């Protein structure tokens, strides 16, 4: 049983490491700023995910029991990774590097990064009851 688990965990670790490597390789290989954003945001998620999964089950093998803290790490990674990516994308837009390439919004206001209208003290979010 432990041998089987050992083998599965080793495979997972190698797969995770490979994904991390591919994500970093994507950083050098892709040519465009926005393209380079894709490789690390995603490849690192599975790389990190498998590493945490292995860490969780490793406790079972060495007898300290199943470790739950990694679940938290995983939740926070999944929640914060898109926000990091969004901020980086906004920086790219704000640097005016993509002017003329991005489509129009199609509505009356511009994209939030370029929006010049002064904000209300209370932001007007789309109303919940409609």
């Amino acid at each position, binding site marked *: 049983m432990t041998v089987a688990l050992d083998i599965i965990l080793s495979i997972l670790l190698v797969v995770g490491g490979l994904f991390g490597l591919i994500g970093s390789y994507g950083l050098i*290989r892709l040519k465009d700023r926005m393209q380079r954003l894709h490789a690390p945001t995603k490849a690192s998620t599975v790389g990190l995910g498998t590493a945490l999964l292995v860490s969780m089950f490793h406790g079972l093998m060495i007898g300290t029991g199943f470790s739950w803290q990694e679940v938290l790490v995983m939740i926070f990674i999944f929640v914060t990774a*898109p926000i990091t990516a969004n901020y980086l994308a906004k920086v790219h837009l704000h640097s005016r590097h993509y002017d003329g390439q991005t*489509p129009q919004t199609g509505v009356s206001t511009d994209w*939030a990064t370029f929006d010049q209208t002064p904000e209300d003290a209370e932001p007007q979010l789309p109303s919940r009851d409609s």
Partner: protein
Amino acid sequence: MFRRLYPHPYLSLFLVLTWFLLVNQWKLGSLVMAIFLATVIPLITAPYWPHRPKLNSMPALLSYVALVVWDVIVANVQVAKIVLFMPRDRIQSAWVRVPIELKSPEAIALLAGTITMTPGTVTADMSACGRVLLIHSLHAPDPDAIRDDIKSRYESRLKRIFE
């Protein structure tokens, strides 16, 4: 009374769960601390989060999370393939605008996060009025298909969960 003490019941539940995950042990003392935190933190942060999001179905939300986790794994394999094997000049990146029907800020945030985590797309921006998302796609020979896929696969589900 309960409503005033617990402005965000799901947040409180999540905080209890988080605390137990942190201490990694099932003890009564931890439960006391967890309940204390689950009461105090939502009360302190309530002014920053005045409305209570409507949640129609918890099982539907959990199945949505499962769907997204599966899609994340698929996305990783797809992006890895593009990074490793596709010739650099054949990668057709595109900006896609996705008009959204969702109104609830929580649902829009969840949709934007989902888009970033799944196949070859990153949410780059939102229109100032909150009705259109700007998405960058790594390899999109057909940008319209990506828009339709996002709307049918994720937005319709979120609409059912939150609205």
